[in-house]
């Protein structure tokens, strides 16, 4: 067991997969230099220019070449530096990669991963801070992994690289400096299996990536007030571990979903809808969502915080859910 930062865990996870499988190759911008987030540090020196390929600033070429390489027998891991940049190559992701297997009736297999730095909290502004995981969730054919810890950064990446389906890994840039334990050996976290990070009987909090530590911080505050929150780390949006969420809500009767993407159409809406459809009878309060604001992300600290989810907003939402029981039911 080693303690690594999240960014070191990404590099370590890539190195583990490249050691294990010679067909795993990297493609992206500034990889040789270690990447702007230092997530590929040391990999060029270790694996050489054949397997660690620097590209020009050409996101369409990166995504398309990853697809072709996957069709041609490699397991490419492409990097789109900031997840905002998916907009420059979204055609390749959603019209080509997501659909190739289906349109070919299973004759094409695309074992590829696209990693990118996602999310806000560090003042990068509206074009470098978006949480874009909900974009991908609109498109059948893409698996979506969003690690919240260094251990999961390694384990989910391992599962993604070994998957025969295309997987988008959204690393959270506010988490890159966070330290955590990474198991030694072959550490694989299966796609589509949520983690219960904290048990509690009063309310279920569902988070993803950076909103998981946020939920845990909220849960600690709530515990001081005598409220026990269960915290579920979804880990993946597709496959979605709906069973774990439904089971938890079945016990707590209350659900607060904490998502960083804009609430006007975030993944939390999908989670809320399926709970409403399938666990309505278990609910003792309306499902609440703490979401990113429906504005482009501003830069100044106070402005960005204003429109971003936070532990305090989660605590407030939980109290709203708990207060709901005081409303007299309609006779």
């Amino acid at each position: 067991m080693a303690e690594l930062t999240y960014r070191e865990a990404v590099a370590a996870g890539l190195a583990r997969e490249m050691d294990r499988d010679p067909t795993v190759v990297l493609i992206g911008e500034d990889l040789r230099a270690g990447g702007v987030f230092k997530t590929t540090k040391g990999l060029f020196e270790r694996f050489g220019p054949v397997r660690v390929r620097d590209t020009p600033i050409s996101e369409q070429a990166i995504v398309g070449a990853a697809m072709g390489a996957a069709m041609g027998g490699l397991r490419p891991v492409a990097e789109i530096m900031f997840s905002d940049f998916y907009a420059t190559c979204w055609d390749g992701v959603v019209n080509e990669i997501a659909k190739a297997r289906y349109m070919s009736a299973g004759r094409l297999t695309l074992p590829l991963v696209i990693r990118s730095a996602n999310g806000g909290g560090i003042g990068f502004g509206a074009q470098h801070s978006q949480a874009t995981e909900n974009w991908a969730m609109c498109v059948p054919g893409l698996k979506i992994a969003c690690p919240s810890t260094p251990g999961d950064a390694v384990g989910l990446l391992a599962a993604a690289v070994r998957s025969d389906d295309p997987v988008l890994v959204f690393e959270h840039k506010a988490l890159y400096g966070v330290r955590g334990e990474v198991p030694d050996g072959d550490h694989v976290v299966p796609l589509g299996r949520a983690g219960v990070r904290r048990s509690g009987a009063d309310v279920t909090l569902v988070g993803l990536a950076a909103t998981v530590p946020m939920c845990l911080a909220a849960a600690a505050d709530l515990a001081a007030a005598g409220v026990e929150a269960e915290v579920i780390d979804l880990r993946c949006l597709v496959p979605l571990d709906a069973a774990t969420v439904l089971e938890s809500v079945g016990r707590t009767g209350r659900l607060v979903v904490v998502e960083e993407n804009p609430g006007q159409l975030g993944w939390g809406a999908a989670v809320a809808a399926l709970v409403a459809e399938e666990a309505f009878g278990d609910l003792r309060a309306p499902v609440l969502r703490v979401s990113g604001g429906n504005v482009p992300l501003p830069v100044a600290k106070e402005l960005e915080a204003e429109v971003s989810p936070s532990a305090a907003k989660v605590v407030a939402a939980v109290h709203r859910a708990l207060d709901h029981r005081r409303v007299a039911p309609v006779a």
Partner: protein
Amino acid sequence: MSTDTSAGQAASGAARGEHPTPDRNEGLTADDLRDLAPADQDLRLYRAMAFVRAFEERVETLYKQGQVRGPAHLALGHEAVAVGVGAALGPQDRSIGTYRGHHHALVRGTPPDGMMLELLGRAGGVCGGKGGSMHVLSVEHGYLGSHAIIGAHLPVAAGLGWASQVLGEDRVTACFFGDGATNIGAFHEALNLAAVWHLPVVFVCENNGYMEYTPIETVVPVTYPAADRAAAYGLPAITVDGNDVSAVREVAVAAVATARRGEGPVLVEARTYRHGGHSVADPAAYRPLGEVEAWKARDPLAVHRDAAVARGGDPAVYEAVMPEVREQVAAIARRAQEAPRPDAADAWTDVWSDGSSTWRS
């Protein structure tokens, strides 16, 4: 067929199902364009073009009868490009094309029966009913698909070349696209990447003069929309008469050899003409009077037949080809029309590698 299956790609999905794609491969096979010898190459090239012509004519008829599901973009007039380049590729090589791609699929050996089933939306089509005319493919024959977003597949071709390079495989990828693709970013990104990485890719522009409904010369400031841009990326470019199959083949043999030697990509721009509209639904009334007739006077089949006869070929032999392939295609169409329709439940398979479309627990 002994064609090496693309590494990492296995026939599965619909191939496993209740209605497998027929491997019946009558009419045109990959072997028909392999090992051409001086004694027979003229006739074999002609016959392959004639088969493509007959296939597309039949698709046009079926479309007008309402039997084709979705649009159909035909290669009538483009036959020499597909056949000329196809004859330059080896069984291990790959090709990839556009929504106007029936000809590119056929010349690699994609079963015509499976293609016709796909076009008519019947069970057993090469895409299991999930692709249609714009997405036909045959992985086992090295045709990695028709792609219907303009330009999107050029970077994919670069990636196929990259895989060959990394794996040390002797495979060249031929990438077909139209003149209309030369103004989209993916074209430029792909050419640059392929050139800077010395990838074994031959980019083939089928310049038919029209970007959908718009004359290409009204939207580009250069004479050759692909070849004139290639120099900017350090790519050798060759222009060729795309209605002369022998010329196309000669150029393609040289380009494929360059790529195979590891000397990097080559771009070929073949000037040709689309006999019909952008799709069968387009009457193409925007074309100036006399233009179609002038190009049909240089029909690639007639050009090649005349040249072959001038070289000593028997005119009677050439005359017999078209009726023969039309009969073959008519039989293919009949079989497809009599085939069962797909099971609706097939719509729920093949999203994921486990065969399912399940997205949640």
